[in-house]
Every structure is written in C-alpha cells, then in structure tokens.
C-alpha cells in the first residue's frame, strides 16, 4: 500500500497537524489512540487563538459589537452540527462538555422525569461506562429496570436476544453506534425499529461514529444523539446532545443559572427557549467556535471519504496484526462491519507491557479496559491493547505498529515463552 492510492491526500492532511512532526523517544510519533481523542489541525488551533485575539466577549448578553460577534460565531456552529448529522433544526443542537455530559443529560433531564419504577431501559453489554453508570444511578433512584443486550463471541450483539428484551415495558433504548473497545458497528436502525414499535425512544452514543463516518439521525432512527468534539478534531470540553425538538421541550434543565432563564423573581423562574435552557452559565465559547472549524475540515474531506480511508487502514491492520504470531484480534473480523478500532492481545504479554514497548517505538496505543469493563468480562480478558485510526494515519504507520508488536513478542517471549505464558494467564 502506498500513500498515493489513498482516497485523499494524506501528505497534505498530515501537514495540517503540527503534533505529527513530534518525535517520541527519538522515533517519529505514530498516533494510534484516536478513539481516546483525536489530534487537532492548525485550522482548529489557530481559531482558538483568533477568537481570543479578535472576538473574546461573553455571549447572549451584550449589545456591544464583540458580544454580538461572539454570539453569532457560537450560534452558527449549531447549524453546522445540524447539517453534519441531518437534524431538523439548529435549536435541536445542545452544546455540552462531551458525550458523558450528553448522556447524563438524557438520563437526568429526560428519563428522570418521564420514567417510573418498573419502566425498562435497554442497553447493551458493549456500552462505554458513560452509557451504563448514569442508568444505574437512575435505577437506584427511581427504580427503573435495566436490560442488557448480550454480546456474542465475535463482538456483535445477540439480535435474537434483542428482540426478546425490547418489549412493551421498554421506554428507552440507549446504545452505542460503534463500540470504542471492539469497533463493532451496531445495527442501530434495526434496534431502533424494534424500540419504536414498542413506543420507546432511542438514544444513540455517537462518540465513535460521528467523527468517523456519515451519520444521519433520521436514517439511524435516533431520538437522541450524543457525541464529543474532541474525538473529531475539535477542542476538549466540547460535545453535543442532539434531540428532536418535541423531546427537548419535555426535558428539564440539569443546571439552573444565568442564560437558561427567561424571567427570575425571588419566588420562581421561567425557562429560556430551547436549547438555551440546557446551557446554564458561560459556556466553552472558544471551544464551540473552534469545533466549527473541525466540522469544516471533516466536511471538506467528506465523511464518506473518511470512512473509506479508515476501512482501508483497518483492513490492512487486521491482516498485518493477524500475521504476528501470538496475536489475538477481538471484534468482528470484517473491516466493513467495524469502526477504525483494533483491539488485540499478545500471548504471554500483558497489554500494559505491549503499550510500554510500543511507546518506546513512538507508537501510541491505549491499553486497559477502555472504560468498557463488561466487554472485558465477556471476552474473559483483563484488558486489551487498542489501536484506533483517523484521517492522518497511513499504511506505513500500520507497518510500524505491527513491527513494534512483533518486537514486544520477542522482548517478552525470550527463551522461556512457556513460562511467560503461565505468568500472564496463570493463577
């Protein structure tokens, strides 16, 4: 594979990401931890500086020019987000600090007030902790019942079980679109149809899909969509909860304070319009405005092209890593059916040690449970190593990954591989 064959010009993309020029331990950085957070292009980095140099002011509250400019720039991003995910109107876009806050807003702002004891929320075994813990908290508080669609051995969901679990008591289905631990693409539309047929709503965790592939809320059948700006070239502390307008209308704000009210007397207050009632206080203004540049960047490449690029890399990575003796790959074997994430382990070498050796090669991967301990339990492994790709990664970087993994195998295997295996998996 060569750079020239790619769906877009990776060389010029890489020039936009200053951090990719870095060396780590004397080796060129190979950044393969994109599922945790993406790197940022100069366009996004420069926008943050531009904002503070030219525009900085608080929003929604000044007649002065700077405040109006800041407000305009901040508000314009809602339409960009809407266009990216196919929502109906820009007011359906609520800015949050990230997926975690978005999902908590669904749990606290919607479910807390709409669900009663005995109502069921259906989740899956492959959720990120942020789509499990808020529901457990609500279960303890309100008495809702949680049901989990199990994972099959290949990392896909047990759809037969899903058909049984989604029933007349189901009020909400909350599922990830793409598993951050395994890459599995969940058939959200099929599940959403089952849920809607029971009169339930559908919440989609798009943290690993919106940055990487075309996502359309109507096609998905989503009533809520949560995602993070920092995983899609934007700044940390930015995120979105999109929800259909009539659902936002029936939600309660999480926080009270400035900007979210219309009138306040000493006795009571009335809520501001949607979406402002969910955005109390001074928000991450420069983050949102820079997120707009991130969306520009992705849109210029085209989300179809982003996806095609990742599938090619993923397909290559599955083959290269699969050829390393001792490597076990987790998740669906077919690159078309997964996001750009490869979770693996190496016989006799703990993921933590894999990560350490890879780091010495300049290769950044994540090791551990990936905030998805139920997935680790289902796979019966304590942890995995995970490489995850994005627009700037190259086949040569996949080669560097595979070579570093082979080196880890040599390093820890040594003359007494058998004993090392016993040490890693024994007990």
């Amino acid at each position: 594979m060569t750079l020239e064959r790619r769906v877009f010009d990776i060389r010029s993309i890489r020039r936009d990401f200053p951090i990719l020029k870095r060396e780590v331990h004397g080796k060129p950085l190979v950044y393969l931890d994109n599922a945790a957070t993406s790197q940022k292009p100069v366009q996004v980095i420069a926008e943050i500086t531009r904002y503070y140099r030219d525009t900085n002011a608080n929003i929604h509250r000044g007649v002065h020019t700077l405040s109006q400019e800041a407000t305009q720039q901040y508000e314009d991003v809602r339409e960009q987000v809407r266009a990216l995910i196919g929502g109906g109107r820009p007011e359906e876009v609520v800015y949050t600090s990230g997926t975690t806050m978005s999902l908590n807003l669904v749990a606290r702002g919607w479910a807390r007030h709409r669900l009663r004891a005995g109502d069921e929320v259906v989740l899956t075994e492959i959720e990120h902790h942020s789509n499990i813990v808020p529901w457990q908290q609500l279960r303890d508080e309100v008495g809702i019942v949680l049901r989990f669609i199990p994972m099959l051995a290949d990392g896909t969901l047990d759809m037969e079980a899903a058909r049984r679990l989604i029933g007349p008591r189901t009020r909400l289905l909350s599922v990830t679109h793409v598993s951050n631990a395994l890459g599995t693409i969940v058939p959200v539309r099929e599940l959403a149809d089952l849920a809607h047929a029971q009169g339930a709503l559908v919440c989609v965790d798009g943290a690993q899909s919106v940055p990487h592939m075309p996502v359309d809320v109507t096609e998905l059948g989503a009533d809520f969509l949560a995602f993070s700006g920092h995983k899609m070239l934007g700044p940390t502390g930015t995120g979105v909860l999109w929800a259909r307008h009539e659902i936002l209308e029936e939600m309660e704000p999480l926080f009270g304070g400035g900007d979210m009210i219309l009138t306040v007397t000493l006795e009571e207050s009335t809520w501001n319009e949607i979406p402002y009632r969910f955005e109390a206080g001074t928000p991450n203004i420069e983050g949102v405005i820079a997120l707009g540049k991130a969306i520009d960047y992705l849109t210029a490449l085209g989300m179809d092209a982003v996806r095609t690029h990742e599938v090619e890399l993923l397909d290559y990575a599955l083959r290269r890593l699969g050829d390393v003796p001792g490597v076990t790959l987790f998740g669906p074997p077919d690159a078309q059916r997964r996001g750009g994430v490869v979770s693996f382990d190496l016989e006799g070498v703990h993921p933590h040690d894999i990560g350490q050796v890879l780091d010495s090669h300049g290769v950044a991967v994540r090791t551990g449970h990936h905030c998805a301990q139920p997935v680790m339990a289902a796979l019966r492994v304590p942890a995995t190593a995970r490489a995850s790709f994005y627009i700037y990664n190259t086949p040569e970087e996949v080669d560097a990954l595979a070579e570093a993994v082979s080196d880890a195998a040599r390093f820890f295997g040594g003359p007494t591989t058998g004993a090392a295996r016993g040490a890693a998996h024994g007990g």
Partner: protein
Amino acid sequence: MVGDAGGAGLDELYREIILEHYRSPRRKRHLEAPNRHADGSNPLCGDQIEVEAQVDDGRVADVGFTGQGCSISQASASLMSDYVVGKPVGDALAAVGAFQQMMTTGEAPAGVDLGDIEALLGVAKFPVRVKCASLGWKTLEQALKRGGDASEATPVTTDERSM
C-alpha cells in the same frame, strides 16, 4: 534484545531479573493452610492479585500469590514473596514501607537491604508503572495487618483513579 525494543530506558524498566521473575515467578501458588489473605486489583490496567500468607509465632512462614497482571506487577510480587518468607511480620511490614519509599524517591532505601528487589528501582522513573509494582506489596500489607478474618474487605488498589 532490550535495544531492539527501542531504547527509551526500557532496559531500565525491564531489568533482566524482572523479566526472569516474570517468566518464572516464584511462589505463585495457593498455600495449603494460609491464615492471612488479601485481594488486590487495579481495574484500569486489569491487574489482579491474591496474596496468602501463613504466619506462625509472629514470623511469615510462607507466602503465595496468584492472579494476573503485567510483567512489573508479577515480577514485583514474585520478588516480594521470596524476600519476606522467614522474616518476622514486623520486618516484612518494614520492607513494604521501604519499598514504597523506593518507589517515591527513586533511591534504594537506607538501612534495609532489599537485595534483588532493588532491580525495581527503574520503575520509579515510569510513574504510571509504580502502581503496578506496588500492588502486590500493598496487598501483602493488608493481609498481614488485618490478621485472620479478611473475607469481607474490599480489594486493595493502587490505581489512582478508574475511568
């Protein structure tokens, strides 16, 4: 071979003694009649350990550990088990303190000769791995301090946070 892995002080972390204890851990087994026991777990990295000890007349007559974890956690537990067997409980606890001091200062502790355990000195230069090296020791400390009945205790952890 260490050079193969890219330098970066890897050879300081993975000293030959450590790799050797990882490949052939000592005392990695259950005891016949333990009267001390504690569990340790670092969920973030997936390290799990169970430490058992048999204490007779104030001496650590035997120690065993089981579980799974990275090379550093396994080698550290193996070196530790070898070291404390035969020592008075007070000395074993003092060794735990000396080890922890070594992890925070990056220097061999004065006044206690930890022998081969000093091979773990390099770990202090890799702050994220200190918790791996410390897990077995903190678990042993809990087992020895808690005495006989420890069945209800929550596992020891050296994870500073778990996401």
